[in-house]
């Protein structure tokens, strides 16, 4: 479907638009449900009143201070993981090219653990995670670089670095004192509990800056999926696009990990689900962001309610869902 206006023309895929609208609706529904329910259930009317600033003080505390920041952080982190995963899967032409498989998330964990051991505050841990993620990405990129970075080499080097970092992480945990190890262990499963606005804001800023970058890079990224030569022949500046996309993807997964810990599988699953839903060839950033957001908030809601009053960290649930999904994906891939 083409929309033309004077010299402008934009191509739209009706199916993708429909899917995105449905996902946005699902995201809103999950968000409202997560804010309204819990140990203390509120009618939707009270939730809306609290959000617009004229609710009762009690409702205001529960909604604006406790639940809303957690849900918003979940939506933003999910979106960031989704986009980051879409970028790297496109660059590597491989679902296993997600940031949680090629070492970036493990690197963020290393940074986070080191910050915990150094006795850091929540903010230091976040900073450590971001630094760890960026450093690892730089390392993987440098090791995989041979006059350009081919996708499969990025995956292979990344998987190697990932294994190495996981070993380092285990070692660090065994060496840490018992309290630090417990704190770090909790952080390592990935969790949204106790997240406040100060966790949401950095992710929101990262998304605001990097989503437009990713959106502009999406078309050339799709060209690069056909091979470097084919893309260059069509006038794509392959190295520049790739560098920009890598930077955006690393920073997104880094800030997301900093906010919620290394929540696994969202970055892997979101782009794959988005592609199957929209049936569009190649990278689908918008839909991936939405699927990521719905997936993470949905999983978090389930993690809070499934075994209530016991609260599971969301990372446990995404790992469970993701593991099953991955097995399914690999099964399908074989034939």
């Amino acid at each position, binding site marked *: 479907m083409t929309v033309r206006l004077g010299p402008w023309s934009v191509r739209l895929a009706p199916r993708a638009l429909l899917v995105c609208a449905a996902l946005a609706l699902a995201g809103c529904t999950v968000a409202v449900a997560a804010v309204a329910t819990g140990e203390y259930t509120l009618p939707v009317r009270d939730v809306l009143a609290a959000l617009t600033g004229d609710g009762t003080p009690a409702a205001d505390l529960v909604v604006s201070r406790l639940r809303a920041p957690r849900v918003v952080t979940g939506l933003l982190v999910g979106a960031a993981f989704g986009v980051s995963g879409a970028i790297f899967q496109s660059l590597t032409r491989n679902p296993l090219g997600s940031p949680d498989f090629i070492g970036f998330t493990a690197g963020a964990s290393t940074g986070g653990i080191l910050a915990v051991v150094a006795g850091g505050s929540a903010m230091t841990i976040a900073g450590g995670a971001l630094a760890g993620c960026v450093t690892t990405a730089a390392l993987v990129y440098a090791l995989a670089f041979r006059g350009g970075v081919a996708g499969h080499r990025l995956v292979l080097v990344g998987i190697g670095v990932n294994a190495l970092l996981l070993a380092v992480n285990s070692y660090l945990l065994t060496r840490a004192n018992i309290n630090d190890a417990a704190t770090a262990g909790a952080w390592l499963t990935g969790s949204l509990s106790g997240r406040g606005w100060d966790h949401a804001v950095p992710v929101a800023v990262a998304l605001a800056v990097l989503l437009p970058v990713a959106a*502009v890079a999406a078309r050339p990224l799709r*060209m690069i999926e056909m*091979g470097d030569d084919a893309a260059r*022949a*069509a006038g794509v500046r392959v190295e520049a696009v790739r560098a920009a996309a890598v930077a955006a993807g690393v920073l997104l997964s880094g800030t997301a990990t900093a906010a919620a810990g290394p929540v696994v599988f969202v970055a892997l699953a979101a782009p794959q689900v988005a592609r199957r839903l929209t049936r569009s*060839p190649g990278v689908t950033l918008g839909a991936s962001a939405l699927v990521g957001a719905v997936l993470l908030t949905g999983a978090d809601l389930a993690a809070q309610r499934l075994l209530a009053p016991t609260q599971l960290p969301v990372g446990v649930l995404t790992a469970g869902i993701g593991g099953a999904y991955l097995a399914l994906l690999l099964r399908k891939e074989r034939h």
Partner: protein
Amino acid sequence: MTVSRLSAGDLTLAYDQRVVATGLDVAIPDRSFTVIVGPNACGKSTLLRALARMLKPRTGAVHLDGSVITSLPSKEVARRLGLLPQSSIVPDGITVADLVARGRYPHQRLMRQWSRADEAAVAEAMRSTDVADLADRLVDELSGGQRQRVWLAMALAQETPILLLDEPTTFLDIAHQIEVLDLCADLHEAGRTLVAVLHDLNQACRYATHLVVMKAGEVVAEGEPGAVVTPELVGHVFGLRCEIIEDPQTGTPLIVPEARRRASAPA
């Protein structure tokens, strides 16, 4: 003297440590149908990739319209010069029409994604490569020959005055080979400059207006096929003993390999 929009001087071409060619000088005559032939691994694709700025030469430079090609904006080059690489990757789940449409990339911008010119170019490219009937099929699910024609359609949709084709006839049956070469000849007659790598010497002689013969990274002969192709040259370049007769259809050289003398009769 012939004029050349596209030429290369003193090229050293190498991958990492492996030097493929040194001191290579090539000029593609304007409005020619230039065909490059040579044995496997002699550097044909490498030369083509260098001409299309896919490969940065160690020394020397490629010139397009008088400028060093790498100094020109990437999309600008892509509107003048197109390349069909020897192999490309089919993105998962893409339809023929979508893939061909990607050839329009250099003509598009973020806010001009699909003009009427794009539409017309894609339709024409699909028609001339005989893939219009496949428009809604998934490229993954096509035969090798159909797929090759789709890639060719994508290169054509780019509508460049200069078009480089690396083995455009691979995977094609004999009828489609001739069809593609006839299509190239039509494009050439319509004023485009074509450069193609071909393996079939007889086809090369039939269609080329300018033949470039390579061996081990060097151009050993170039010119009009009738003046260039001799049994000595074929023997020297391909190590093949042959006889050359006149093609009964076109009068161009026709290479007839010498039959291997039968070994002793089976016992």
